[in-house]
């Protein structure tokens, strides 16, 4: 192979695969903690995408890296609040099974 750098498509394919694995975990997990982990996986896939575009298409202004910083901030806040909600759910229902959280089912 005679390339001068890693192609952009390689990063995009890795992030696509990571995103789809995250969606699969989100849809299929019974444990609420694993659902939060899947959300973190999806956020990481989006971050890889932003970083790859920032490096290959916008490599002078690198606005994608600034966006990644903001996404990391929001992900940290989301994880903290999500796990707090999970703890208070566990205190009320004594389970972390997603199938038993059906109070809002229509």
């Amino acid at each position, binding site marked *: 192979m005679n390339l001068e750098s890693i192609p952009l498509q390689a990063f995009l394919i890795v992030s696509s695969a990571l995103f789809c694995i995250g969606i699969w975990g989100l849809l299929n997990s019974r444990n609420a903690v*694993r659902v*939060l982990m899947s959300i973190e996986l999806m956020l990481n896939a989006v971050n890889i995408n932003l970083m790859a575009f920032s490096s290959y298409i916008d490599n002078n*202004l690198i606005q994608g890296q*600034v966006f990644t910083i903001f996404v990391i901030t929001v992900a940290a806040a989301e994880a903290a609040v999500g796990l707090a909600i999970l703890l208070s759910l566990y205190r009320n229902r004594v389970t972390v099974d997603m199938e038993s959280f059906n109070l809002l089912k229509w």
Partner: protein
Amino acid sequence: MSIAITTQFICFTVLSLVVIIGALGVVLLESIVYSAFLLGGVFMSVAGLYLLLNASFVAAAQVLVYVGAVNVLIIFAIMLVNKKEDLKPISDIKSRRVISTSICLTLLSLLIRVDLTNVWSLSSPQNSIGEESTIRIGEHLFSDYLLPFEVASVLLLMAMIGAIVLARRDVMSKDISTGLPVDQELIEKSSEPLLTNKN
């Protein structure tokens, strides 16, 4: 970047394999504790991918925030809610699996097709600022991204207060649901769960 291209390819291949296999392990493994530690490995490998993209500051932020804070938080949550329980079997679990897997595979093929067929307008590598990206991020954060930066600080404060309020164990003189006085000495005593029986 001054690393030889072969080294870059080897690093990229190893890191992507760790990311993909680790992510599969996170969603597929039975034990949630193994999943949490694998998630830490996935976060570290993603930080390595950022280093390959000339972004040392974001890689450091990724390690600090994700591995140092989010992953530790997840492990603590597992420790607090880790109770062996027999999950109730779902009747249509097989069709659910089939449908969700086919949706994910369709989405994956669609995304990969877009990745490979679209013609990206790549900029020339001569424009790249390379290792000065940390300086440029600082300039962005204090000029054109100043408002989002300040709003992010408010967001973090809100998240911190919200997490404290949600996870706090209320110490009250009277129980809200029953009106009986609460035994203040035994705060750790398990109270009657409010919503368990409702199905």
